[in-house]
């Protein structure tokens, strides 16, 4: 039986891999980054009191599953260099960059403490990424410069640092390809009027989730104090002509409402103002969040797009916004502003994609389609159109099923 190549180790790629392996297929999974999990690695579980069904743990659990499967060959820090059509499928050349840390790593983190490089040259896997094996960035590491530093290697309790690691090239023959390169979050600083990059206490939702995931609470980056008044702003980067992202990113309302609920769970005293244009909580009744906000006395829903965030008194932030009926302009002070950023497809227009026949349409997404599927190329996940983890997972299972039966028919 031929193998299946899965490009991308995010929710889509992992779910598809797991589905295929469960059916008895063999999968080669190629991930560009050092760990599996994709975007979900840096997102936080949003259920402090009860599960809010955000789906983040689903992706991380699948990463764990896939790493334990014998029939899933996982290539981290790897890229697909070329794909050639062969008689019965595709011949794929995969290049793996050296990691310099072997699987003996137990993730204790002593090496990171010892590393003398500013900004460190040895890293733990990002967020909740799996496996929990560290890695060295060659460009920064002093060992590969004149210094011949070996500090991390000397403190490692399991002797997992291996400076002799080399790049490897492997060739695999596969019968089908799943292209699941996923998304990139929009940089909130593209919307300069909202103070990102200039004001310390304006954070993007990606940063907020990362901080919540790492520390369990959200503090002001400028002085480390707990914020008392927070503004959450929707549609930053999405539905905007300026950033070129004219579509709605679909999942921002879902995660932002859940982050708001999480923040209130952590500290019920927080005053939270939720600025939005349309409340599009995905696959949830539209009045559910409204009812929740109404029940919490400290939460206010404001339907407007704030104009400017500027520095206020005593290190606070001043948000200028028109009221809903455009009759007045309000100025409100906040301790912290969270910008809910949308997403752009990643790798919809790559060289590799083009060689497979995948091209982005005018919206920037690569929808795939029956024609490509006939050739054994399946585009899957949020690179096809905006979607959340749950929908991604359903579609990945569907794609895996299609591939599995396609293989049977062909055999």
């Amino acid at each position, binding site marked *: 039986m031929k193998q299946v190549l899965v490009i991308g180790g995010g929710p889509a790629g992992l779910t598809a891999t797991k589905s295929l392996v469960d059916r008895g297929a063999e999968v080669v999974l190629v991930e560009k980054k050092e760990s599996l999990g994709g975007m979900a690695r840096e997102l936080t579980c949003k259920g402090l009191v009860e599960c809010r069904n955000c789906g983040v743990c689903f992706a991380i659990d699948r990463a764990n599953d896939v790493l334990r499967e014998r029939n899933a060959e996982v290539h981290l820090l790897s890229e697909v260099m070329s794909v050639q059509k062969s008689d019965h499928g595709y011949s794929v050349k995969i290049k793996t960059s050296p990691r310099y840390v072997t699987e003996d790593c137990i993730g204790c983190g002593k090496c990171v403490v010892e590393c003398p490089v500013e900004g460190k040259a040895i890293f733990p896997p990002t967020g909740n990424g799996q496996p929990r094996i560290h890695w060295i960035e060659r460009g920064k590491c002093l060992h590969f410069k004149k210094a011949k530093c070996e500090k991390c290697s000397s403190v490692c309790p399991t002797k997992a640092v291996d400076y002799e690691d080399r790049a490897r090239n492997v060739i695999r023959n596969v019968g089908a390809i799943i292209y699941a390169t996923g998304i990139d979050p929009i940089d909130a600083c593209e919307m300069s009027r909202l103070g990102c990059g200039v004001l310390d206490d304006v954070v993007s939702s990606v940063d907020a989730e990362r901080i919540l995931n790492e520390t369990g609470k959200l503090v002001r980056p400028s002085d480390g104090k707990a914020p008392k008044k927070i503004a959450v702003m929707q549609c930053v980067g999405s539905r905007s002509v300026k950033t070129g992202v004219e*579509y709605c990113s679909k999942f921002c309302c879902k995660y932002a409402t859940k982050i708001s609920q999480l923040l209130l769970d952590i500290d019920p005293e927080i005053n939270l103002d939720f600025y939005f244009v349309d409340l599009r909580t995905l696959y949830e*009744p539209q009045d559910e969040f409204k009812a929740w906000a109404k029940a919490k006395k400290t939460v206010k829903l404001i339907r407007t797009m704030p104009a400017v965030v500027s520095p206020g008194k005593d290190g606070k932030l001043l948000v200028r916004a028109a009221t809903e009926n455009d009759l007045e302009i309000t100025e409100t002070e906040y301790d912290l502003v969270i910008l809910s950023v949308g997403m752009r497809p990643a790798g919809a227009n790559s060289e590799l994609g083009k060689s497979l026949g995948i091209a982005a349409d005018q919206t920037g997404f690569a929808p795939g389609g029956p024609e490509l599927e006939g050739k054994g190329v399946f585009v899957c996940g949020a690179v096809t159109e905006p979607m959340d983890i749950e929908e991604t997972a*359903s579609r990945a299972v569907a794609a895996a099923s299609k591939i599995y039966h396609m293989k049977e028919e062909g055999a």
Partner: protein
Amino acid sequence: MKAKIQVVLCKCCTEMPALLNMERLQRLAAESNNVLSVLTVDAVCDGKDLAAVVTDAKDKEIDRAVVLACHKKDISPALFKAYKRAGVNEFLVELVNIREEVVLPHTNMPEKAQAKAEAKLKGALARSVMLSPLERQTEEMKTRNVVIIGAGVSGQAAALEASKTGVHTILLEKTGKTIKAPGVIVTHGQLLGASGYGGNYQLKIKAGEKVEELGAAAVVIATGGGWTTLKGSLAKAVRDALPLYKFYEQMQAGSAPKSPVIIVDTPDPAGKTLKVQDYAWDDTLETAIELKKKLPETQVFVVFQEMRAFGLSELAYKEAAELGVKFVRYDTAGTPKIDSKNPTTMSVKDLAQGEILNIKFGTLVFASIPPNQDNKAIADALRIPMSVDGAIRRGSIQRWPVSTPRPGIFVCGSALFPKAKDVAEAEGMAAGAMAGEFVKRGRIEFGGIVAQVTQEKCSACLTCIRTCPYEAPFIGTASKAEIRVQACQGCGMCVGICPSKAIELHNYTDDQIMEETRVLLGGDF
């Protein structure tokens, strides 16, 4: 019989990062009662070390084990297989998660870590002595049937995908419309009742006039949503009112609607139940755009509470606005109303202008998709939860996306929440594929940690039967509660709620829990 315990310390985790005093742990284990052997290995997941563990267990005729390592889900299943080879029951292997519960939270506190590790070891030893061996059993599925309720977009996709796995699909469709899908198609079919458990459900269905019994290994719920129609006095007064899909069909057939057209999201313009679950946002926009392109003279209003043009539908929203479709947003303070005395005018407070609009309309179109009316009966029959809005509730996404809390029951499409056609189709395929794979296994595995009723204590109060989400307890021939082990998932809800304390969960009995707690707390309490 005296217990013979083997203690295994996994160095991969416990010494990490050289935090614990292994010798003290070893001595503590060796000095405890019933411990015959203490092994320290480099990694319990490693083949060589596993072999050493098995040889030692066989030599000393061990019958139970305590393993100090990491989380159960991180430990290779090979460990349990190895113990099975050595004749140790898998339910007598007690795992202690040293890595996540001791080492990682106490990296800078070696003394506390040591104390905690020792306490946990003592607790595990005390628990291990009290455990009893359990067996898991298997049962063949009686049929290869996958029953799919609803033959809409998601139902048909599910049938197609499930049939590819070689199972037998039966599609229940409430109406009499002709459907092209593999397997048996039962028109005018309905689910009346169900009993059984994942793999062997017994369904009672209505096929036309007949009521039949039907065995099913798995069930896919694809009931979809419903459509709103006018009721009461308004139904007589407003002539040209129709749901969106009918309007679209008529438009496709070439008939020109009476202008102006209002597409409204509320399920009840009489103004009583205004709870909007959701409406067909993308179909609304598509219809409005097509109408405007075909007949630019027609005035089109879209009246809504919240424009939920998700994802790429946003582009359609923009296009519709550019084509001159008028969007009127209202909220609960100024809902759209039609007076039955003046049935061609809708009054609604437009929030963009802050004024009440009186729109004279020629055609009224409903785009609201309320949850399917049949959901309640189906959810009751299959004992799966519903959301407050009357939709089927999905299981936690931690499992799989289209699964429900009950094994073998899957749910997809608008039965969960109004969805676009392509999403419903993908979900249907996923549900069908998963149901197919579930049935293809051919057998179910059950037993192990399940509940058991002490019949003498049972007063047949039915509390457990009402509580269990899996339909495991039933009243047996002795008029006492019994547990259907095939259905029991070992959640322990009945154990906690039983007023007579008649139910216990294997290996989590009161005595076992109390003894472990007593040791953990360091003596009597």
